[in-house]
């Protein structure tokens, strides 16, 4: 393959001459040998295009491809209509880097504006930023938004995704925000325990809906208690579920955040995702990252600008509430294309299919001896079952090209999406039954 040549031999010679050096070795004389790349690595003859492709294909062939994925836990296997990558991979989108001269890049600003509009319609909130990295970053940034001089504690339910909790704790370390975990009771946030934790220094309450175990939380009761104590309410939502469940505005959320991955983004070893953050107008100036606004140019034409810039670190400097300044713009764009193609009717159909198939699978699984739902209550498309020998179940399904639920202590966290067929689910149930019969 052709070599990437940052500068020609003549340029290299001229630069060395200007420095009064005879060779590049002299230039790097102060760099210890132990940290240098071996010479052979630099003089590798390289591969032809054909050899490169073959090498990469043989690596790709080592990936395990599952015909059915019954695992979610923060990353979901939804169908991606081919039009989504087809449009998202247009070279104008793939080559567009972050717009430093933002207003010159009207195209990317418009794509962000369209995304903000879509996610605000879905969450029912007033304002959205351009997105952040993933649900965990979004949760942590949301908790920081709510912190003020008097209220410095972020309350997080133990039913939230462990990654969200971990990133919140990392952010908390830096901003002096103490993270307190509200205990879990029977797979749900413990409302009675929460009541005792709503102290004068509590700034925010983060509730994930559906929660990590797939269960639907009693959000109105939890948020009602928090609001009465002057604590801001953060809803961590799987956006696909918002097609069926009440939106953030209806629930009285101050912030709704989460992950766009279910919208047209592949599971791909867990990334890249795209986090979303939306809030009420009252909190707009606390929202981190970029916000694109719509305006008119000097000739009255529709135009887009970065707005509310004074919040951001390049202007507000050390007093900025956040130092986040980038996002997963291409993932966000992909999610926007998915949403635009599917429409509310499309994602409602996906959500209904997920709920229906997950409940069918749960019912069928629980007819097996030794398998039962761990928690009572409503769930969306994930649920935990108690199960003998989760490792054996995982291994048995794996041999048949099925990725099992996530093994948890004494059980499994299952997820069923619209991609599973009845026949596939029936065969998975049969396999689980066979394993359980032998335990």
């Amino acid at each position, binding site marked *: 393959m052709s070599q990437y040549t940052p500068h020609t031999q003549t340029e290299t010679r001229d630069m060395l001459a200007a420095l009064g050096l005879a060779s590049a070795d002299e230039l790097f004389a102060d760099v210890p040998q132990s940290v240098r790349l071996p010479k052979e690595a630099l003089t590798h003859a390289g591969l032809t295009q054909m050899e490169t492709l073959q090498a990469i294909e043989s690596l790709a062939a080592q990936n395990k491809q599952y015909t059915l994925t019954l695992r979610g836990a923060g990353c979901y296997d939804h169908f991606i209509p081919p039009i989504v990558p087809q449009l998202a991979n247009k070279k104008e989108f793939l080559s567009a880097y972050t717009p430093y001269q933002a207003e010159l890049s009207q195209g990317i600003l418009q794509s962000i504006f369209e995304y903000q509009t879509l996610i605000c319609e879905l969450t029912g909130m007033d304002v959205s930023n351009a997105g952040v990295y993933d649900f965990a970053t979004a949760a942590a940034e949301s908790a920081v938004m709510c912190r003020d001089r008097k209220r410095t504690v972020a309350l997080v339910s133990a039913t939230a995704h462990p990654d969200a909790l971990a990133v919140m704790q990392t952010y908390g370390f830096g901003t002096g925000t103490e993270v307190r975990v509200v205990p879990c009771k029977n797979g749900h946030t413990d409302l009675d325990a929460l009541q005792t934790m709503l102290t004068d220094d509590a700034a925010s309450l983060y509730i994930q809906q559906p929660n990590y175990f797939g269960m639907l939380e009693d959000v109105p009761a939890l948020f009602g208690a928090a609001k009465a104590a002057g604590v801001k309410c953060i809803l961590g939502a799987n956006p696909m579920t918002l097609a069926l469940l009440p939106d953030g505005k209806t629930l009285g959320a101050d912030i709704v955040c989460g992950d766009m991955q279910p919208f047209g983004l592949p599971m791909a070893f867990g990334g890249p995702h795209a986090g979303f953050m939306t809030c009420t107008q009252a909190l707009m*100036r606390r929202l981190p990252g970029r916000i694109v606004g719509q305006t008119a140019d000097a000739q009255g034409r529709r135009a887009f600008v970065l707005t509310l*810039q*004074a*919040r951001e670190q390049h*202007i*507000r400097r050390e*007093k900025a509430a956040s130092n986040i300044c980038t996002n997963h713009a291409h993932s966000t764009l992909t999610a926007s294309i998915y949403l635009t193609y599917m429409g509310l009717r499309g994602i409602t159909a996906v959500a209904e299919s997920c709920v229906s198939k997950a409940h069918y699978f749960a019912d069928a699984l629980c007819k097996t001896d030794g398998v039962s739902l761990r928690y009572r209550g409503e769930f969306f498309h994930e649920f935990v079952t108690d199960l003998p020998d989760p490792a054996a179940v995982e291994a048995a399904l794996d041999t048949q090209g099925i990725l099992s639920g996530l093994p948890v202590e004494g059980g499994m966290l299952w997820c069923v999406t619209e991609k599973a067929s009845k026949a596939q689910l029936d065969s998975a149930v049969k396999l689980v039954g066979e394993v359980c019969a032998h335990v």
Partner: protein
Amino acid sequence: METKSGLFYAKSHEWVQFLDDTTALVGISDHAQHELGDLVFVNLPEAGDVLTAGEMFADVESVKAVSDVYAPVSGTVAEINETLLDEPETINQSAYDAWFVKVENITERGELMDEDEYIAYCETL
């Protein structure tokens, strides 16, 4: 630049109008609003907050910058001017009417100038 007699001024361009020995209104000077440009947002403390002379207690946002506002006296916030939250432009229009907070139980005054001293100070800037 407009100033107003009877008010006291801090080097950081806040004004203080003493209503009695321990109560005062606090705002930012006409010079300050002029330097900041069109204000779009004001972040005020809450009633009951304790102010310490010389420490920031509020911030103002113009189109291009955010600036801290420092307490010219130590005391307790009795009241905030909620009008400013919806109409920050009133600070640009009439800086000496647009008080930020009413402070009570004043225990300490920072280094303050009278009108003539403040005019002389601004001329040195």
